[in-house]
């Protein structure tokens, strides 16, 4: 039964993916991609990876989809949305098929390795959190996560570097034309408090059950975006210092905590077991704030106030 379900799900996933890749029309491809993301999230649930499912749904499908849609919108505004014809199909297909076949072959020859299971079991009590995924993310492999948060920041700075010189002092994203009192506006008035709650809960819960800074941050970012679209808040300018602090506070706290660990406990990024939990929480909160701001700004895009000449 479950195999059949899995087969069906995977068939669906593949079908939608095929539609995304090979289907005509850029907009349709993007929509298919969002659907695809949600299906994959379901797949993650089937694989028992709830944290990943949350991340995939929020980030892989949600935020990525929004990014793509927004880009499509801007391209259309520029008059360059026309989808280019496909290139060398046969060779590309051959290349893709060969890669897929290679990976498939690898699956069947993969040995079942010795895993860090025992080490994990031994370490969990000192990790400060109950959720092993969070423990890995924020403690055992905190360095990855720290770098990852920096990657986000780097992407944002990179995105800002794409601003036209004359737009530099403008507000982030496209100029807003939402009508006060419209559906979006009222939706936008309701959603933020709810979203805020969900987001905070995700961060809090991430320590013991599923969720975490990234998932929570994504929700908070979504809240901010909706509020901005509803005209409730105006996107900030690039030069707004406070927001800059918000962008860097998470990684900064993370690094400083790591350094404190190095001084106190001897190794960089060490969280001594007694204070591990509060430390992780502090880091998570700061990180969530930064992630939320960063993600929101990523979606908003660089300022585009001025009209193209």
């Amino acid at each position: 039964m479950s195999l059949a379900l899995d087969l069906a799900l995977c068939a669906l996933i593949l079908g939608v993916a095929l539609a995304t890749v090979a289907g005509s029309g850029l907009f349709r491809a993007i929509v298919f991609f969002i659907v695809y993301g949600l299906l994959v999230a379901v797949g993650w649930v089937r694989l028992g990876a709830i944290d990943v499912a949350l991340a995939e749904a929020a980030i892989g499908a949600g935020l990525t989809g929004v990014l793509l849609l927004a880009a499509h919108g801007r391209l259309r505004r520029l008059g360059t949305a026309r989808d280019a014809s496909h290139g060398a199909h046969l060779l590309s297909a051959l290349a893709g098929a060969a890669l897929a076949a290679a990976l498939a072959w690898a699956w069947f020859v993969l040995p079942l390795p010795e895993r860090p299971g025992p080490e994990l079991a031994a370490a969990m009590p000192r990790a400060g959190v109950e959720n092993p995924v969070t423990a890995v993310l924020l403690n055992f492999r905190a360095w990855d996560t720290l770098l990852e948060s920096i990657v986000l920041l780097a992407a944002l700075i990179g995105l800002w570097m794409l601003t036209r010189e004359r737009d530099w002092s403008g507000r982030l994203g496209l100029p807003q034309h939402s009508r006060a009192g419209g559906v979006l506006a009222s939706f936008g008035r309701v959603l933020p408090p709810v979203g805020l709650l969900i987001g905070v809960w995700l961060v809090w819960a991430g320590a013991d059950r599923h969720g975490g800074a990234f998932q929570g941050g994504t929700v908070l970012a979504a809240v901010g975006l909706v509020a901005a679209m509803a005209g409730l808040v105006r996107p900030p300018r690039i030069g707004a210092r406070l927001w800059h602090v918000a962008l860097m506070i998470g990684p900064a706290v993370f690094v400083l905590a790591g350094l404190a660990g190095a001084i106190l406990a001897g190794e960089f990024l060490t969280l001594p077991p007694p204070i591990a939990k509060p430390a992780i929480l502090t880091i998570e909160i700061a990180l969530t704030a930064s992630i939320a701001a960063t993600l929101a700004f990523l979606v908003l895009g660089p300022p585009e106030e001025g009209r193209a000449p």
Partner: protein
Amino acid sequence: MNALVAVLALPLLGALAAVALPPRAGVRAALLATALTVAATIWLLLAVARRGVQGVILGGWEPPLGIGLAADGLGAAFIAMSAAVMGGVALAARQMMAPDVVGARAAFGFWPLMLLLWAALNAVFVSRDLFNLYVGLELLSLAAVALVAIGGKEAALAAAMRYMIFALAGSLLYLAGVVLAYAAHGTLDIGLLAARDAAPSDGLALALMTAGLLAKTAIFPFHVWLPPAHAGAPAPASALLSGLVPKASFLIILRLWFEAMPDRAGFAALMLLAGLGAGAVIWGSLQAMAQARLKMIVAYSTVAQLGYLLLVFPIAGGDGAAQPWAAGAWTGAMFQVLSHALAKAAMFLSAGLYLAAVGSDRLGDLRGLARTMPMTAFAFALAAVTLMGLPPSGGFTAKYLMMTAAFAAGQWYWALVMALGGLLAAAYLYRPMAVLFARESLIAPRPVTRAAQAVPLVLAGASILLGVFSAPPFEFMQIGRPDAAEEGL
């Protein structure tokens, strides 16, 4: 507290400060972070030289659960290379990337991106964890792409876009290999991987990772993104991109083939890699000859110079690792990395100064500039000496060591490629030199301060000194080397 941590954390904190602080203070913070990181690098070098490999078990969690970092002689040397280039670039960028020169946007973005790039480089240079390397590489790639896009012109944007595609594809291939490696071995640590029994999928994993990294290293024929990207970026950024960035992915290839999976390295595959390297040397040089812009010439020269690095594989890799000549070949390649970084940074900064002086880097517009900017011309010439592999430069030491080893290994044809490469380098670098030395100048150059001219000169001089005093770095890079043969040839 550990010097290794300092070289990782300081640039990160500097970048964050540069983001958070107002523009002027941000630049000051960035410069302070640069200075501190340089100091930390020296600290690290001393520590490695005195006490051997410097390791950090992050968070106290041993691999396979946690991530281990280790600065062996090689990693520390690469970190030192970054510090030298970054230091020089930071000094040059104070003027070149000032708001009144490049605008507020680029002036804001450059500093955090530079420091992030630095942090990413250092992270990659010391990481012993394949996935952590992936994250580091991504940080590196995004910062690098952003630095290309800072240029803002259409060509620069197209170049950045192209770079992005190659970088993403490379990352995915690398990631695929990492996935296979973990799936087969349950660990990501390089040292542990080497200790585990081989799995059938290892070959594919290594192939995926290597191919991805080759694309990121801009090895022929995957080099096409590099010249327009490096030529399109502002000069200080080009210096970083050309001098340092490809070295990170190359180092990972090296770690994979020499440390993580040395048993996988069959001779045919090693020869294939070297073949690509030879192709890069020749093709890159020929393309460099056909360019009309200084920065394009210098950028194609990077393509050619990176090719030398791959020649080390069949000489010192696989079964060759145990041979007496391996240390020489391997260290020779590392010398090539280091001296190329210094020389290439000097060249791009020189090009930047010329660009600032006459507003163009077309060869025809550079006529006679050796007269008005002799220090810069001299720096360019010194850097050219290194790239040509002429003594007593670091480039020469590199070539000498590698060629000797190639002969000893009976692979004289790679030595031929190296010799030919030196001549081709002379051929493509001659044109800019001759133009600079011409008597007449067409465009009256804007004045450039001596202090600005001194930076590339110091970098180029360092690339020469690397050859003159090559014994200490040679010894240094043997620290922690697997199969380190005590004596070279």
